[in-house]
C-alpha cells in the first residue's frame, strides 16, 4: 500500500496500535477455547477432574482417545457419517451441476421461471410438519436415504455455480462445440466440468462439511441407533451426558470418580475427534471456501 511510504502521523499510529490490540484480543478469544479443548483431551483424567489444565496438556495420555475406540456407537457413528457424507455429496454435486448448467444458458427460455421456482424456496417453505408428513409418506423414516435425498440440492449452491458458469464458459466455446455436433450432455462432461474445477471444489466442500455436521434430518427422521450419524451420538455423549460406561469396553474401574473422570475426558477427546476431519483439511482448502463466499457475494 502507498501508506507505508508516507511517514505515519501520530493519529495513525494510535489507530494502528488500537487496531492491533483489538485483533490480538480477538485472536486470543477465538483461539484459547480451541487450545483448551485440545489440551484437555490429551490430559489425564485426574488433571481434567481437578481443573489443573489451563493451557498445555497435563500428564499427557491418550486415554480419552482410547475410550472413543472402545465405545460401540461412536465407531458406527463415524462409519455412518462417512457413508452419508460420501454418497450425499456425490448426489449433491451431480444435481447441482444438472440444475446450474441449463440455468446459465441465455438461450434457455424457461430459465427465469425455473430460477424463480428455485429461489422462492429460499424465502418460504412448508415447514417442519408438512415436510415430515411427506417424508413419512415416501417411506423414508428410519431409512438411510433420508440423509441423502431430501437435501439433494441447495439452491444457494446452484446460484453460485450458475454464476460461475455464466462467467467462465464462453458462448464461443458452446457454438464451436455445437457446430461439431456436440450434445449438451456431452458438452457438460467434456467441456464445462473440466473448466470448472474451482467451483466444483467449492461446492463439494460446502456439501461435504454440511453432511458431516448435519444434525436436523437425522434427529427428526432416524430413530434406529444403528443408523445414527456421529452428530447424534455426540448429542447423547456431549449434551445429554448419557454415557453408559459399560458401553466402553475395557473400563473396569470400581470407583465412581474414575468413571466420572473417563466420562469427562471422553467428552474432550470426542470434541476433537469429531471436528478433526473437517478442521484438518480446513487450512488447505480455506481459499476455496472463501472463494465460494466471494462468488456468492457477486450475486447476493
Amino acid at each position, binding site marked *: *500500500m502507498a*501508506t507505508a511510504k508516507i511517514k505515519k*502521523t501520530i*493519529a*495513525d499510529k494510535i489507530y494502528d496500535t488500537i*487496531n*492491533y490490540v*483489538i*485483533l490480538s484480543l*480477538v*485472536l486470543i478469544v*477465538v483461539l484459547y477455547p*480451541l487450545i483448551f479443548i485440545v489440551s484437555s483431551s490429551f490430559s489425564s483424567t485426574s488433571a*481434567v477432574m481437578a*481443573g489443573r489444565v489451563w493451557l498445555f496438556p497435563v500428564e499427557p495420555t491418550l486415554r480419552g482417545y482410547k475410550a472413543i475406540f472402545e465405545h460401540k456407537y461412536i465407531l458406527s457413528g463415524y462409519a455412518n457419517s462417512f457413508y452419508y457424507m460420501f454418497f450425499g455429496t456425490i448426489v449433491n454435486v451431480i444435481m447441482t451441476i*444438472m*440444475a446450474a448448467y*441449463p*440455468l446459465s*444458458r441465455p*438461450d*434457455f*427460455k424457461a430459465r427465469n421461471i*425455473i430460477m424463480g*421456482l*428455485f429461489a422462492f*424456496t429460499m424465502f*418460504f*417453505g*412448508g*415447514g*417442519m410438519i*408438512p*415436510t*415430515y*408428513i*411427506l417424508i413419512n409418506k415416501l417411506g423414508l423414516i428410519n431409512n438411510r436415504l433420508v440423509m441423502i435425498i431430501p437435501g439433494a*440440492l441447495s*439452491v444457494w449452491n446452484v446460484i453460485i455455480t450458475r454464476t460461475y458458469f455464466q462467467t467462465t464458459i464462453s458462448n464461443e466455446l458452446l457454438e464451436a462445440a455445437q457446430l461439431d455436433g456436440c450434445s*449438451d450432455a456431452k458438452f*457438460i462432461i467434456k467441456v464445462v466440468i473440466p473448466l470448472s474445477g474451482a467451483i466444483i471444489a467449492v461446492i463439494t466442500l460446502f456439501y461435504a*462439511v454440511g453432511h458431516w*455436521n448435519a*444434525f*436436523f434430518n437425522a434427529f427428526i427422521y432416524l430413530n434406529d441407533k444403528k443408523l445414527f450419524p456421529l*452428530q447424534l451420538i*455426540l448429542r447423547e*455423549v*456431549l*449434551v445429554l451426558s448419557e454415557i453408559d460406561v459399560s458401553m466402553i469396553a475395557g473400563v473396569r474401574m470400581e470407583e465412581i470418580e474414575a468413571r466420572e473422570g473417563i466420562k*469427562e475426558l471422553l467428552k474432550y477427546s470426542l*470434541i476433537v475427534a*469429531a*471436528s478433526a476431519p473437517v*478442521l484438518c483439511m480446513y*487450512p488447505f482448502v480455506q481459499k476455496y471456501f472463501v472463494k465460494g*463466499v*466471494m462468488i456468492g*457475494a457477486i450475486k*447476493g
Partner: protein
Amino acid sequence: MQTRSMYTRDVNGKGILSGRTRAMGKAIKKEMSRNYQLYLIILLPVVYIIVFHYIPMYGVQIAFKNFRATDGIWGSPWVGFEHFRKFLSTHQFGRILRNTITISVYSLVAGFPIPIILALALNNVEKIMFKKTVQMVTYAPYFISTVVMVGMIIQFLSPQFGIVNRIIELFGFEPILFMAEPRYFSSIYVWSGIWQGAGWGSIIYLAALSGIDPTLHEAAIIDGATKLQRTIYIDVPGIMPTAVILLILNAGQIMNVGFEKVILMQNSLNLQASEVIATYVYKVGLASQIPRYSYGAAIGLFNAVINLFLMLVVNRIAKRLTETSLW
C-alpha cells in the same frame, strides 16, 4: 405434456384454441424441441424441488384443517383459523413469541456489527502474516458442528469442571449454574454464535473492501486524511450496500431462531427462556405422545408468513432509504 396435446388437437383441426394461444404453443414447442436436452438435464432437479419444497407448501393447508392420516391432506376436514386462534390464546404464546424475538433481535444487534468491525480492522493490517493468522483462526470455528458447539458450551460452563466457573471461583465467587438459569440463556446463545460466526461473516465485507477504488484512498492521503477518517469516510460507505443486503436477508430470518442450537441447549430448567417457536412446533407436532400435526403446521406457517412479511417490509424501507434492495 399440456403443450403437446394442445398441438395435436390443433393439427387435427378440432382445436378450439385462439390464434394467440396457438402461436404461443408453437413457440413453446419450438423452444422445447431446440433445447430439449437442457430440459431433460434440469428435469431431475426440478422434480426434486417440486417434491421436497413445493409439496410441503401444498401440505401446509393442513394448518387450516384437522389432519387425519387416514383421510390424507386433501380429504381432512377444514376448520379455518381454529389452530391459529388456539395458538394465539394459549398461555405460552406470549412467552414463546417473546423468547423468539429476544434471541433473534439480540443476535442481530450484537452480531451484525462485529463482522463489519473485524473486516475494517483486518483491512488496515499491513503485516500480511498477522492478517492471515487472524483470518485463519477466526474462520475456523465456523466449521464446528452445532452439536459440538453446544457440547463445548456445556463443558466450559459446567459448574463442576468448567473453566469459566473455575475462573469465577478463583476470584472467590460461587460457581454459577449457567445452563440452568433462564436469564443467561439468550446471552450464551448469542455470544457463542458470535464466537463461532463473526470471522466467517467478515469475509463478505473484506471482499467488498477489496473492491473499493484505491485512488480514493490515495487522494485522501494526499489531502492529509488520517486512517480513522479514511475508514469512516471511504471504507464504511464502501461496504454499506453489502451491509444493507445482509441486513435485509437477516431481517427475513428474525423469527427463525436456529432450531438445532436451541433444542440442544434447552433443558427443563431453562425452558422458560429457551422455548422458541421452532422448538414448540417440534414438541407439539412431532415429539409429543399424541402429535398434533395441524396445530404444529399452523404455528410453523404463522412463523413463515411473518418472516416473509418482515423481509418485504425491510426490503422496501431499504430501497427507499439507500437505493439498495434485493430485487
